[in-house]
């Protein structure tokens, strides 16, 4: 694969930033290590996190724990949200029944549900999955709904005149027609899942990346805070990239489409 000019420029920018980071901390000592860690501190923290573990389990254990919560919350959101969005987009009655509920609940930030979630489900994983679900569910529903509403009427009419049975109509006409918008919704859901995960794990957790961040803050351990942040960033970017891959496979027909 040939690397483009953009790739070189991007890599150069990152290298310069890394160099400035080094100079500002270890190199010239402009920023005290207690406020912002030097590259060496982060490396040491990473070695500790992956090796001995911090505070009581290795980073891989924490990552797996967080991944599990995000995977469950995201999967349930998609499994319920996409069908509900399809139903609302196609069925006026369903739309009229469900839309008001969304209008009332949507302005409530997902994190505001945390106290109620803890009250209902305790401090365990269930409450965190519930909060992730509450954050990830609306974008899945809303984008799918909007995607169905945006299907061109002639496509719907073509399906009708071809005598398409109801279920096949939903699966082979509505869903693929709305697929680009559905994937936009899934990307938003995934981002919301990761954002909410960290916040949910900051409260009453005994494992996970949010827990690592919380303990590192109490320990005044900036190197470890950066390791935790980097882990969340890498996982978020990685899962978004996987979703993009799935999208390209699913909507292969739109590749290079000009209209």
């Amino acid at each position: 694969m040939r690397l483009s000019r953009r790739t070189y420029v991007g890599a150069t920018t990152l290298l310069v930033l890394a160099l400035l980071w080094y100079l500002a901390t270890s190199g010239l000592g402009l920023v005290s290590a207690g406020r912002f860690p030097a590259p060496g501190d982060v490396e040491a923290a990473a070695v500790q996190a992956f090796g001995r573990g911090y505070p009581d389990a290795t980073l891989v254990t924490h990552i797996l724990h967080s991944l599990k919560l995000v995977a469950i919350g995201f999967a349930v959101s998609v499994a319920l949200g996409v069908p509900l969005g399809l139903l609302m987009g196609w069925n006026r009655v369903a739309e009229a029944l469900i839309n008001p509920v969304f209008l009332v609940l949507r302005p409530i930030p997902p994190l505001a549900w945390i106290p109620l979630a803890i009250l209902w489900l305790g401090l365990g994983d269930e409450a965190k999955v519930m909060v992730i679900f509450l954050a990830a569910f609306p974008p899945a529903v809303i984008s799918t709904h909007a995607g169905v509403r945006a299907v061109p009427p002639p496509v719907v009419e073509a399906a009708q005149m071809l005598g398409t049975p109801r279920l096949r109509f939903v699966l082979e006409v509505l869903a693929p027609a709305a697929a680009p918008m559905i994937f936009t919704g899934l990307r938003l859901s995934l981002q919301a899942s990761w954002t909410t995960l960290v916040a949910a794990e900051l409260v009453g957790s005994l494992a996970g990346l949010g827990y690592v961040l919380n303990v590192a803050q109490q320990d005044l351990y900036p190197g470890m805070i950066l390791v935790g942040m980097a882990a969340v960033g890498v996982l978020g970017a990685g899962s978004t990239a996987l979703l993009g891959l799935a999208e390209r496979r699913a909507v292969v027909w739109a590749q290079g489409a000009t209209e």
Partner: protein
Amino acid sequence: MSCIRFEQVDKTFGGAVKALDGVDLTVADREFVAIVGASGCGKTTCLRLAAGFEAPTGGHVTVGGKAVTAPGPDRAVVFQQFALFPWKTVAQNIAFGLRNKGMPASERDARVAAAIGMIGLSAYADAYPHQLSGGMQQRVAIARAYVLEPEVLLMDEPFGALDAQTRVVMQEELVRLARKNPRTVLFITHGVEEAVYLADRVAVMTRRPGRIKEIVDVKVIREAERWEDHARIEDVMDLESFVHLRTHIWKSLREEKGGVGH
């Protein structure tokens, strides 16, 4: 027997805009009727009523003696903007209606292959619509309708979105198909020449609210003057009998427009 019959059909949109006002028109079994009229005169509304996409406000629309209540594969529609399924290949688009009918795969594959051959796109069976030109896409849309072997074919300005050269090729192709395998066809267009070239009869519509102003019998003259001896559309269009009919319909339409523009 599957004639299309409009009896005193009114259509009002939103209680205010009167699109059709007492339309009377019969398309006989295996007859090709074109409706010409200015944009917005309600000619597409006629087609949508016959297709079952809209319901009349007054009067009756029947196909084969039965009132039209919903869209269905007995009345295949070719849309102006093709309306193919972009996520299905050429073959899948054409096969879709046959799958809905529950036709066994082996028979279906044979019919689809024959239809793709008919429109000359055998090399593109597995291509997606966006990989095809506009003319090729419209051929797929026509094949998707023809493959159902519908009693009735409803065509809504099917060549309106095509460039002039492609349109001529498609018109000649449609004439060939229609003569070889006659169907009851309702064809909507604003092109007078296209209507005279393709149709057995041409119905002229008034400006909104649309009424049928005049019906011109082309078939009698076409057969008397032996248009079919001329393979190319431009040769037919040069014939005195063609020019005469075209001019007559032009004038009829132009009166409708109060002599302004064309």
